[in-house]
């Protein structure tokens, strides 16, 4: 794996819980829809490995950030829908604040914030 791909892979892995919480924050969704929404809303920039999506969902569920409910589908097998819990909403808020602060800091270091001339 090239350094660029490795960096991208690690970055996506680190941001997957935040992306998952964000899209589920808009309403309950099942796994495939979550993956598709992340891809669509990021214009294809974030195409999380679908294989890493399910472990992230199950870990968030175990941590109490999500609850899951089985529903029958009109087309194909039954679906497992995920919804944010109050704890998940708090985690989403905290994660967003952390990410914003982190991204600004990276931007200041990488691009300069203008104060150095």
């Amino acid at each position, binding site marked *: 794996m090239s350094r660029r791909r490795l960096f991208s892979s690690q970055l996506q892995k680190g941001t997957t819980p935040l992306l998952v919480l964000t899209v589920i924050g808009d309403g309950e969704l099942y796994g*495939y829809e979550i993956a598709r929404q992340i891809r669509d809303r990021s214009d294809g920039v974030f195409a999380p490995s*679908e*294989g890493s999506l*399910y*472990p992230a969902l199950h*870990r968030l569920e175990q941590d109490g950030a999500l609850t899951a409910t089985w529903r029958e589908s009109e*087309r194909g*097998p*039954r679906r*497992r829908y995920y919804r944010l819990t109050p704890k998940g909403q708090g985690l989403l808020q905290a994660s967003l604040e952390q990410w914003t602060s982190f991204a600004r800091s990276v931007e200041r270091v990488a691009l300069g914030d203008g104060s150095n001339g």
Partner: protein
Amino acid sequence: MADPERPATGDDYLARVSAGLRLPEPYASEVRDELAGHLADATAALIEEGLTQEQAEREAIARLGSPDVLADGLRRAQQTRRRLLAGTAGGVWAAVGHGIGGTILGYGLLMVVALSITVLGAVLNRFIRFDWSLDVSVPWQAWTTALAAGAVGVGAFLGARRAVQTTAARSLRPVRKIGPWWALGGAAVLGVWVLFVLRMPLGWPAVAAELLIPLSFAAGATVMIERPGPRIRMRHILVGAVVGFVLPVALLYGVTTQVSKTLSAVGSLPYASMDEMWHALHYDLIGRPPPADIAAAFEGGGDVADGGLVSMYRDLASTVDLSAWHDFRFEAWRRLPDDVSPDPNFRAPFVTAPAVLVGTRLQATLRVDRTPGVIYYGLVMTGIGPDGQRYLLSGPNGGQTAFVGTIWDWFTAQ
């Protein structure tokens, strides 16, 4: 060219994930259903984009990535600390329950083994004159300890297996990863227990059997742990209790009757002189025969045994003058099994205590259960006379004992 490592169909993919999950139902089937839904959605979307059914299915599988990596990630997601704590608590409960049940069962099994060996020994004695018997240098109390420790060892083995399997099932972790931790922890706890806490009558067989308890637990937690262990049911415990307890009580009754008959058959032997008797009975190891007036000075006495403590006293006639005597003491000597004579292989008492004069009574307390290897002992009182020689003034009176203590006591007393 198709990747041989990658499953070609959705069903193959789901089977690989299931095999890699190593998680109990219903969790595993829920994971299969969820992934089956995902593959169906992804395949349908890709067909809408223009791919054939086969191409779409292959692409959907490829996007999910390696089934082994996915199974590993899903399993780890379930392995929370909370589940591990709950599983460990359940494991402790299972270990205690199966340990107690296994111990009762173990009594029954060992009793069957012991009876089989006894019967075999009797048959061999009868037909081929094979002189076989248990090591009589070990007191029967210590044989009882060995039997009990062996039964606890069986309980430890079965309890450990159940503990590992319970913890693994509840924490959703593989038994081969849980087993070593249980083996280490359980063996450490049981090791401390048998070394420093458990106080029992001991002989070498009992020491070996007690030391096997932690090893048995470690073996139960690790050896072939992935195979389902036997589940102990109430009927097993009942059979073990009947064979392990009722039978020994019946046998013990028979043995006790036989021993008392043997002891009652021991008689006195004639000697030409006091010196001859003194030497023949090995009393000269203890001291010289007492002068007649001194021997008559002791009007009576007694020994009161309380566990391993023996309180001794001898009453003196008030008129006797012992001012020229000193260093009165009570002594416990190893003796021969069939009479009170000292064992000639030992030249000194194994424990002594100075006799304290209270009024007209000389008294002391001796502990006789702290010397490994002592079973039969004789208690005497001695004193040093005006000539500087030690005299045997009273006794010997016989008794039986066994070393009682922890394994640590046993080794430090050797």
